[in-house]
């Protein structure tokens, strides 16, 4: 990558990791209660009941892994920027599928009223699950990216990883905001369409800019963006935990 026109000194990977953990530990001080809250939730409710619809969830997981494995059969002569664009576009897909399924299933189910009156109500379970989903998506994405990086030498693992993480959490924030502000079921479709259309438009309309964003922004900038996204995301998750449907009677 000789044409890197930004003259920002690149820190090495260990510096990045150290800085990330430093920022995370400082940023998460106030969230201590949030994590201990989640902990006591696992202790009291248990994984079994938190994921009571395991069968449906694993079905979704299988489908998405199927989609991921398409990456392994892509032809070897593929444009690098296209690969990055695909990673950016597809990274949130597992999270999206699992979260939307959970959200619709939990809030539209006839058991909504009963579960809402429990100590750990519907929104708290959804928030917990979304967190678990984003972690598992991140892990799965990382694996997928490792495979891609092995297959295509031009793909930088770190860049692809940051890109994928940023995409995942950026999208998660958009989805959370959408879910909390609109009560219509259509909002999910809208969010998804906006995400895909937005990416496609950016890619086709202003190819240089989009590619520049994907290919040439230094990894550290991505790291910072990723971190910001992560913090905003955690904040919204916390909000979802105390979330109340104001008009509620469905």
């Amino acid at each position, binding site marked *: 990558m000789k044409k890197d026109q930004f003259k920002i000194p690149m820190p090495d990977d260990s510096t990045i990791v150290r800085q990330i953990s430093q920022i995370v530990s400082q940023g998460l001080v106030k969230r201590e209660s949030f994590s201990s809250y989640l902990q006591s939730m696992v202790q009291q409710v248990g994984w079994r009941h938190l994921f*009571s619809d395991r069968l449906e969830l694993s079905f979704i997981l299988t489908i998405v892994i199927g989609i991921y494995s398409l990456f392994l059969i892509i032809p070897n002569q593929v444009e690098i920027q296209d690969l990055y664009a695909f990673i950016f576009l597809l990274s949130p897909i597992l999270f999206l599928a699992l979260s939307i399924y959970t959200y619709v299933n939990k809030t539209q*189910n006839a058991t909504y*009223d009963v579960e809402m009156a429990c100590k750990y109500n519907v929104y708290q379970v959804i928030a917990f699950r979304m967190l678990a989903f984003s972690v598992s998506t991140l892990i799965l994405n990382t694996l997928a990216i490792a495979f891609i990086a092995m297959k295509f030498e031009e793909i930088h693992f770190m860049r692809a990883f940051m890109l994928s993480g940023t995409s995942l959490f950026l999208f998660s924030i958009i989805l959370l905001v959408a879910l909390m502000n609109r009560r219509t079921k259509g909002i999910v479709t809208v969010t998804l369409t906006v995400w895909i259309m937005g990416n496609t438009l950016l890619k086709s309309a202003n190819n240089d800019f989009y590619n520049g964003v994907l290919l040439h922004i230094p990894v550290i900038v991505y790291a910072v963006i990723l971190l910001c996204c992560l913090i905003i995301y955690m904040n919204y998750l916390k909000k979802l935990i105390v979330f*109340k449907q104001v008009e509620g*009677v469905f």
Partner: protein
Amino acid sequence: MLVVKNVSKRYGDFTALQQINLEFNTGLYGLLAPNGAGKTTLIKMLATLITPSEGEIYYNGKNIIAMDEQYRELLGFLPQQFGYYKNYSPKQYMLYLAALKGLGKKEALRKIDELLEKVALGDVVNKKMKKFSGGMIQRVGIAQALLNDPKILILDEPTAGLDPKERARFRHLLTELARDRLVIISTHIVSDIESIANEIIMIKNKQLLYKDSVENICSTLKGNVFETTVNFELMKAFRKKYVLLSEKQEYGKMIVRFIHKGVPEVEWKPVVPELEDVFLYEYRDEIEGEV
């Protein structure tokens, strides 16, 4: 204990409840009003499923919405439509709900057996709920509301679908429960609560009409309820003139129960007003409008 202060609820432009003020203490409260009066709306606000458009609800001085899960830990709730998972047995479903309520598994198992026994479902604890009758499901609903031994028990039309024998058993259970906790039940069936409620709450025109003992509410019609016999031919005119509470045929004549405020006629037999009379009288416009 539980205080409803200046609470109003609007759904968009539609006002369902307006400026409700109530105070609940230990005991049994019956929320009695016709269809669409706003019982479920009030109950859902008390259960924090929806928030008031105006006003607040306090438990021991603390806003119940701010109390959040602290409040829900004290709460037992049966919604009007009790949803369940078809493929679950009552035991599975209650184990799931017990977990969401933060109960330990051992404690939950003991409690579940005890409660299902109490609602006479002891022999079907492991049967899938899709094979249950409406009344059996309703009884699972009552049992799950008691899982966490709630200090506040709120039941929205719990007797819907129960046969007379189960109703009697349920009334007995409620009286026992209301000894040391707050129990609020909504219904439009007068006989469900008239003998057991410490106080009756009636809502009319989106506002609180009565919150009083059965005796006091009935005394509002004291000296105004009569029975008499009327010839068939005269019934039409009679219906126009008085508020009829009930009528039955006997030996070719009609025996009518009705309300008259003012000087009674000699052949009328004065009777002691009952809660049903007050209900029919107060909601006469709405009830006639429905027919």
